[in-house]
């Protein structure tokens, strides 16, 4: 019966094409939503795992946005007095505190970074966030002419890059984090301070800032056994006029927002699924109607009701299967550009597609296709099987 079903489809290309198209589009949309949503969620989780800090201290300025600071590579020139670091270290529950200074590249000419990109300067002596990445790149420390680049920063001139008039050697590339770190330059704190103090162009961007006396962020690791919320409360009590962000809270907020977006996406897709099922029911019913006489002939030459039922179901499954394959492939191909496009417009943490996720999407696509084909074919298959053969053969034939 499979062979018969296949011949019915392959020799009725016009009819089959439309059905395959409907199925393909639905599966494609599903695969895109699934791959994108899953990828984004994994990015958020990865960000949390790799961020390393429990609390982020930022200057208490209206423009300061923890989300932007954590997840984007947008230059974010925010500063607070350096003395705050000493005060923070004294707060009960703080195990480690390490400062960072944010500066930026400038629109420049040939052989240099030609767009405004964030530079994060870190203190080699106290840093606990970037150390694991340095270790991964087999580096104990960074020389003054060395930098580390995020995984999405393109290499310039081989392994060198010109930043603010100086040439730096690229000591290593970070693994993907799914955050703004992927598009960031990392350099020694002392070097960054020197650049900020001496580069005339940068001085224009950062007027009235003494780079020796400020930091942009302080990353805190709380002592083992201490509650992050308690330490945040302790810092608030110290009245340091700073913005205190528990990083898990940022991630939780992100997850909540993503969950809401995900629910909307799934809801819309479910509606699409319903519309598709209805369209396919109509399609398969019409096809079964057109071929009623053939079903009658099948019954007349010895085909059982179950054979008619199976034939319609097999045809639906084959159509859905082909639609699934095409939809999944199209979906996987389309989700890459979609992610790139969204990354440009939004500050999302998105990772590259992994083979595992692709396989997962394909498998789920098959499940959706079986659901689509099965649901849509049940009614026409059952109806065709129940028809009395004489009714359909004798339509217009009875004397």
């Amino acid at each position, binding site marked *: 019966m499979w062979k018969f079903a296949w011949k019915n489809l392959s020799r*009725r290309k016009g009819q089959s094409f439309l059905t395959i198209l409907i199925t393909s589009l639905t599966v494609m949309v599903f695969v895109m939503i699934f791959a994108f949503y899953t990828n984004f969620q994994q990015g958020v989780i990865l960000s949390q795992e790799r961020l390393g800090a429990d609390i982020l201290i930022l200057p208490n300025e209206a423009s300061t946005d923890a989300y932007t600071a954590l997840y984007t590579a947008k230059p974010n020139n925010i500063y607070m007095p350096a003395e705050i670091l000493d005060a923070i270290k004294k707060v009960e529950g703080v195990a480690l505190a390490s400062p960072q200074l944010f500066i930026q590249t400038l629109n420049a000419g040939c052989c240099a970074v030609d767009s405004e990109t964030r530079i994060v300067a870190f203190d080699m002596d106290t840093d606990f966030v970037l150390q694991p990445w340095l270790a991964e790149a087999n580096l104990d420390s960074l020389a003054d002419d060395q930098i580390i680049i995020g995984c999405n920063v393109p290499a310039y001139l081989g392994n060198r890059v010109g930043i603010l008039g100086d040439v730096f050697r690229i000591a290593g590339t970070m693994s993907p984090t799914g955050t703004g770190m992927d598009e960031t330059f990392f350099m020694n704190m002392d070097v960054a301070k020197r650049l900020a103090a001496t580069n005339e162009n940068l001085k224009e961007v950062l007027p009235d800032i003494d780079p020796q006396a400020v930091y942009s962020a302080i990353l805190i690791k709380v002592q083992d056994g201490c509650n992050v919320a308690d330490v945040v409360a302790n810092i608030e009590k110290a009245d340091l006029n700073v913005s205190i962000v528990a990083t898990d809270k940022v991630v939780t907020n992100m997850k909540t927002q993503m969950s809401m977006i995900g629910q909307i996406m799934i809801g819309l897709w479910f509606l699409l699924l319903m519309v598709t099922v209805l369209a396919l029911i109509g399609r398969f019913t019409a096809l079964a109607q057109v071929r009623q006489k053939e079903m009658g002939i099948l019954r007349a030459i010895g085909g*059982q009701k179950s054979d008619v039922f199976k034939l319609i179901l097999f045809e639906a499954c084959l159509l859905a299967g082909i639609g699934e394959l095409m939809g999944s492939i199209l979906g996987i191909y389309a989700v890459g550009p979609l992610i790139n496009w969204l990354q440009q417009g939004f500050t999302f943490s998105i990772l590259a597609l992994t083979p595992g996720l692709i396989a997962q999407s394909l498998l789920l696509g098959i499940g959706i296709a079986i659901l689509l084909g099965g649901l849509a074919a049940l009614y026409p298959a059952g109806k065709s099987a129940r028809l009395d053969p004489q009714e359909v053969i004798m339509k*217009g034939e009875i004397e």
Partner: protein
Amino acid sequence: MTAGPDAIKANHLLCELKNVVKTYKNGEIVRPLDGVSLRCEAGDFIFIKGPSGIGKSTLLYLVGGLLQADSGEILVDATNLKSISDYDLTILRATKIGFIFQETSLFQALTVGENLTFTLKIINQYTKNKLSKADINEKVAAYLEKLGIADRQDFLPHQLSVGQRRRLMVARALITEPRLVLADEPTNDLDDFWANKVIELLQPVSVRGGAVMMVAHNMLGAERGNRRYTLNHGALTPQH
């Protein structure tokens, strides 16, 4: 099922209609068969003539179990068609009856050869001595040759002429070697040569112990019938 195809012996009763009534209610009430009785024994070639629309096809569909009578009894191979399940009725049709329908009734997505192969494969699932693939191919080739459409084996039905389609339908009905052939205007659309050829091909069915029940609106083939009837006003009248 009460008996297999081999249980039917020559000169035995193959089918019997006892006072069969069939009525259609489609706006007005039409009664094409009004108390029809008929016995069809092995070896019979029954020819039934009647004008178009008089109920000849209805009679064949009733005998083939494709239609149910309002009253009366229809027995095929000693089995009352009303007393068996749809499943067994399907097997009976597959193994003992060959239909030649009046209208084109082919699987449009299957080639000429595949239409015949598929029919044999369906029958194969009900028989003990199953035909091998080689046997099926051999049989298909033989019947296509007999009906003069061997060179059209790989054509789809819509690529055939009307007459070639008719011959394919005849081949499909005969290839299963049924005991009872129900032929509804089998010579329609055929030229004289092929009309006579088809009648010739039906003849051996009765010769080998089966029976043919053929209906037509003209007298072509009537001379082959050992029993001839006219159907009119719901009744069968013997013709001599």
